[in-house]
């Protein structure tokens, strides 16, 4: 399965034009409100929400393509969390404006909410069910930015839990949804970092030749391309399985694999990209760091690679060795 071609073309065209380094820079600590409006006007902030619920319709693969493109361009808007957040609002009206997703775990009295600093509503998922809160109604105990200048807030779990409508979805699913959005964003950003590095290796000269002619740089690029491709493959699998399987436990596991792989890829890809770019890539004026800082931020949000790998590992361990191969052949399953 794949996303609608026209949709992909639309979002790519739009973001290529709008998301300049200057606008990313200007949006740090907040978001790019005019970009958000443009996306909303184009119906891109409600893809995946059925038309019957006031959304644009579209498949999970469409949703994934939009968020991946947002990641590729470093779009400074909470498009990922808005789109996956809306999927928890079944039966409720989906409010306009950006959403943030709160995973209300029982073991935390205070919940950090990525993008909470600019969202208009919070989708809070707890064991009591799903609650939709205007951000303005929430007691915010702390504010801050992630490494990429995307603003989070912290809110008491009890306040988030209040008024929940009972739901099949619990905090595990919300953690999974947030991780899914991050896996989409990261797959895109990883591609961008590889592209920037190839471009730089062809431009930059040292010791009288382009650094791309050094075997070590070539091998770095090959390794980076491999990690980015595999992270993309893991995401594609998660999209396929989450679209086609009715078993939400399977969804969690393929999302776990996608988020874990993406996080792993970040370590290698960011490290080698900065090594290739040298000092210039370390400055805040270079395009590279808009992507690498996002990747460092996103790999921590909604569970690090080791946390998600452990989710997958525990599931596999409880199934036993003989069950592993049959499970792997369902990720993705064969399709007609």
């Amino acid at each position, binding site marked *: 399965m794949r996303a609608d071609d026209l949709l992909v073309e639309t979002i790519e065209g739009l973001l290529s034009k709008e998301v300049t380094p200057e606008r990313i820079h200007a949006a740090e600590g907040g978001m790019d409100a005019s970009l958000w409006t443009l996306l909303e006007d184009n119906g891109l902030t409600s893809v995946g929400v059925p038309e019957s619920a006031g959304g644009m319709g579209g498949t999970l693969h469409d949703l994934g393509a939009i968020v991946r493109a947002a990641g590729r361009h470093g779009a400074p808007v909470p498009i990922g969390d808005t789109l996956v957040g809306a999927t928890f609002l079944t039966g409720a009206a989906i409010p306009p404006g950006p959403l943030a997703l709160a995973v209300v775990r029982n073991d935390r009295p205070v919940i950090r909410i990525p993008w909470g600093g600019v969202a208009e509503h919070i989708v809070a998922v707890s064991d009591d069910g799903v609650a939709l809160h205007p951000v303005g109604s929430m007691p915010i105990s702390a504010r801050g930015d992630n490494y990429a200048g995307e603003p989070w807030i912290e809110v008491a779990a009890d306040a988030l839990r209040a008024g929940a409508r009972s739901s099949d979805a619990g905090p595990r699913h919300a953690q999974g949804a947030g991780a899914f959005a991050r896996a989409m964003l990261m797959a895109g950003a990883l591609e961008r970092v590889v592209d920037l590095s190839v471009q730089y290796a*062809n431009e930059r000269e040292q010791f009288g030749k382009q650094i791309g002619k050094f075997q070590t740089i070539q091998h770095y*690029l090959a390794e980076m391309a491999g990690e980015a491709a595999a992270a993309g493959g893991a995401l594609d699998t998660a999209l396929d399985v989450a679209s086609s399987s009715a078993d939400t436990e399977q969804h969690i596991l393929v999302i776990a*694999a996608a988020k874990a792989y993406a996080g792993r890829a970040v370590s290698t890809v960011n490290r080698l990209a900065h090594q290739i770019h040298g000092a210039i890539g370390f400055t805040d004026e270079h395009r590279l760091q808009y992507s690498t800082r996002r990747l460092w931020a996103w790999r921590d949000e909604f569970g690090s690679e080791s946390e998600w790998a452990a989710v997958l590992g525990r599931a596999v361990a409880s199934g036993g060795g003989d069950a592993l191969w049959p499970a792997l052949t369902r990720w993705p399953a064969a399709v007609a």
Partner: protein
Amino acid sequence: MARLSFPPAALPASTEQLRLDVRDFLAKEIADGAFVPRCDTWLSQHDPSFSAKLGAAGFLGLPWSKEYGGHGRTALDRFVVVEELLAHGAPIAAHWVSDRQSGPSILKHGTEEAKRELIPDMVAGKIFFSIGMSEPDSGSDLASIRSTATRTDGGWLLNGTKVWTSQAHNNHFFIVLVRTTPVAEAGAKHAGMSQFVMDLQAPGVDIRPIRTLNGHHDFNEVVMTDVFVPEHYLMGTLGNGWAQVIGELAFERSGPERYLSTFPLLAALIDAVGPNPSDEAAAQIGMLVARLSALRRLCISVAVSLDTGGLPVTEAALVKDMGTRLESEIGEVARQLVPPGSNPAFDQLVGDAVLSAPGFTLRGGTNEILRGIIARELGVR
């Protein structure tokens, strides 16, 4: 910006029944004690009777034309069968080369006579092939080979030495790459090479073992001294051998054998660690599974592309580079999570993996060569 392409792809639903059939077959064989799962079986576990059973069950020569005794199914059907055989650690070295590349090569380049003579027994799992490519001084620089074929009455006389011919001491034939025009005359290093089918039992063939550090005798040196090869064993066009060989690389490099060689160890590791690992042990196992799953998807994308006429040489190189590192690392993780000495069967699998691992990232193109190929495709010049 050039970017490698792994279009979303999945195996067709038509492969599902076949997968279950193979799985049933293997479950019975394991239950009957026909084999114990091992690592790296496609290179090391040579069992003609098991290969013949697979042939009889219809699991060999799947995509080959029915006209020559094949099953007329698809390359993706074969992919599924191979995945199952590898994942279960079945002894498949006997027919491996024959089924993966010699058969397709003969069907594509071989003479009608050769096809009629050889293919049916290959489908039956009764005739086995090796590869005659590397030479003592060629290493990664395959174009530097020096073996020759010169014309004689009714055919060719072959001379020279091939090395790293796996299972030549157990198999019937190899397809050999030799010079039919000297470099000086051919003009370019890659010109003037041709491929032949050669009978490994023919007079003038001397097969000498190359033992490896894992204690195996899998490889051989094959010395050819005026070995007669009949005309109808010429493959394809005279002098076109290099192009023919290169065209097969994507097939050779992209298969699931490039990341599943140590899968039986991973399955055993999960049982050895037990159902309640620590968070960190679970994370290590989970990350291996995530990597396997991701690579399997890329591998399927390559297989589908090949099946629909693409030639994803670079993508295949990428899967092989990443996959062979993964299959090596499975051994490293396993031996650290489960110290040796408590379970001989597990120790055996770890030993297979650790001592065979150096071969994983060398055979079929070293990872350094592969990374150079990938970088060029990415557009660094």
